């Protein structure tokens, strides 16, 4: 999603400039611009396009600006854009990039009592990766996140498909609104409600008891033991992240040119085959985005393992929190956090790489 917004902004500017300025330009510049425009259709990769942009922005500035070099610089598009973004960028650098680098640095430091010894060492990582508890917790986190991602995306796809293809256009935003509401309302309370639902004396068990399904001599002897299981954690997280998966898939489906589907059917494919060979591949960028946007945050979830797992089934975030706050071993906590994020990043990259043929964009 992030990439698409960035490249979309780029598209807009590119289109706008080419539209408004084309007639005034010299023929050579026009040719160059057209070529660039075409080329960027072929390779709509943000990296590539920003590089090209820099190349073509330079001659334009010299033409447009008059006066001293300083005022030319002040009026260039790049300077304007950079000046405008600088407050937000500075904030992100100071409060996001710098702290993340700090956590990376801390992971190589030694822990002294109440202090941190600034001495580079790999001991933390050695301790983390040889610790069977860490490996078990990381594995559990990956399994839970994988399960949650699978369930959420699989359940979300039909909804996104329904929204995009079967809902009247003027109703779409109402549906999206209804779907996103639960996502914005108190996460903590929603997670806790699952504890209430699944608990030993919870809604399901007491409900079954009151209709006579649970009890001595009944269908089920003892109340169901649902809390403190990986399944319960996964169910809760899947519920919490459901809208996260719908939105990117919906956006990808909306972008599909409907005439492609008609073409598929005109050429004799069945509805199912058209879906498999046209719709699904074109929706894959959305599916990949949905997978990442669910998988990465769920791995770092703290609340659900704590409440639903009863603290007995910790995930990585619980381990990080324990090291950072109660145990106050900041280098160790940092090493765990960095290790976990590195594993997540590797898996995500591998996933993106495996799906690279869907992400290339229109040919």
């Amino acid at each position, binding site marked *: 999603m992030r990439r698409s917004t960035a490249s979309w902004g780029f598209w807009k500017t590119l289109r706008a400039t080419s539209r408004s300025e084309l007639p005034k330009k010299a023929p050579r510049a026009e040719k160059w611009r057209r070529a660039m425009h075409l080329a960027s259709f072929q390779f709509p990769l943000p990296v590539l396009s920003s590089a090209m942009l820099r190349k073509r922005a330079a001659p334009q500035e010299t033409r447009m600006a008059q006066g001293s070099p300083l005022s030319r610089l002040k009026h260039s598009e790049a300077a304007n854009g950079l000046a405008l973004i600088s407050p937000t960028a500075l904030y992100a650098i100071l409060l996001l990039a710098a702290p993340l680098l700090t956590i990376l640095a801390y992971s190589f430091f030694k822990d002294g009592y109440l202090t941190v010894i600034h001495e580079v060492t790999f001991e933390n990582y050695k301790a983390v990766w040889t610790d069977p508890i860490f490996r078990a917790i990381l594995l559990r986190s990956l399994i839970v996140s994988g399960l949650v991602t699978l369930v959420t995306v699989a359940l979300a796809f039909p909804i996104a498909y329904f929204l995009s293809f079967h809902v009247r256009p003027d109703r779409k935003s109402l549906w999206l609104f209804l779907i996103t509401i639960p996502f914005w309302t108190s996460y903590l309370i929603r997670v806790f409600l699952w504890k209430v639902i699944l608990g030993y004396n919870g809604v399901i068990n007491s409900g079954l008891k009151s209709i006579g399904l649970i009890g001595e001599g009944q269908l089920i002897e003892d109340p169901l033991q649902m809390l403190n299981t990986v399944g319960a954690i996964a169910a809760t997280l899947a519920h919490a992240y459901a809208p996260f998966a719908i939105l990117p898939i919906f956006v990808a489906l909306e972008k599909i040119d409907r005439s492609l589907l008609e073409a598929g059917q005109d050429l004799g494919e069945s509805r199912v085959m058209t879906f498999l060979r046209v719709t699904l591949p074109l929706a894959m960028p959305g599916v990949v985005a949905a997978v990442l946007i669910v998988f990465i945050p769920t791995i770092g979830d*703290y609340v659900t393992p704590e409440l639903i797992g009863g603290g007995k089934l910790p995930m990585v975030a619980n381990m990080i929190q324990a090291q950072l706050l109660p145990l106050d071993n900041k280098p160790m906590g940092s090493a765990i956090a960095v290790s976990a994020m590195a594993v997540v990043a590797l898996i995500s990259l591998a996933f993106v790489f495996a799906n690279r043929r869907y992400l290339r964009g229109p040919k």
Partner: protein
Amino acid sequence: MKLPSLRIYAFAYLAFLYAPILLLPIFAFNDGTIIAFPLKGFTLDWFSQMFANDTLGRAVRNSMIIAGSTAVLATAFGIFAARAGTRFSFPGKGPIMGLIMLPLVLPEIMIGGSLLLVLLAIGIELSILTVILGHVLIATPYTIAILNTAFASLDRSLEEAAYDLGEGKLSTFRLITLPLVLPGIISSMLIAFTISLDEFIIAFFLAGNEPTLPTYIFSQLRFPKQIPMIMALGTCLVLLSIILLTIAEYVRRRGLKKTGAKDTGGFL
């Protein structure tokens, strides 16, 4: 409506999304100390208990200050970034925007944990101020997502006309751009407010001894006696969130109508 089964599935999915939330009011008014069926009777005790609670009062006040500041600051940062992102191209745009949007996918514990390390290292005392710092960070990407739509649907010729008619940069922004993106700004402030109001992990790491609503709720969840009151509190919170979101959505749609843009969907 070619596939009725898909429609049924969609409604079932909505029901699944809402089912847990619907339990809140049921047990908030239930005259029983344990959260279980069958229901006992109607009571307003839990609500009066809620209003009489002093710590809760302080948590509410803290949360309102944090959420209000976050809404204003995150939206201000969002305006800068969305304007720069939709209007200008500049070197390093991809990486810069990437960094700003990173909190969308980064687990909150990474943000809370890393900020905690830095704040402790430079010796800043934890307070609601430090929570605001963290919340602005996570709310800004959402405000940018909303404001991007607002700025992208802006007709640039209107601004150019204002320049041609002799207005300066600032006055054009104030007279032309701002009124047109105002719905987007209001809607993004409401969303940022809701995000901050609900955020737990960062507040848990950075609030020090000050309670916020989510950290207060979290601390009470281990006392079974307090649960009915938490259900009442949850009912109020969810209602408040829904009201804020509905206003945000209403404003957003009006704004889209004003600029004549096509409504492409929700907030993101």
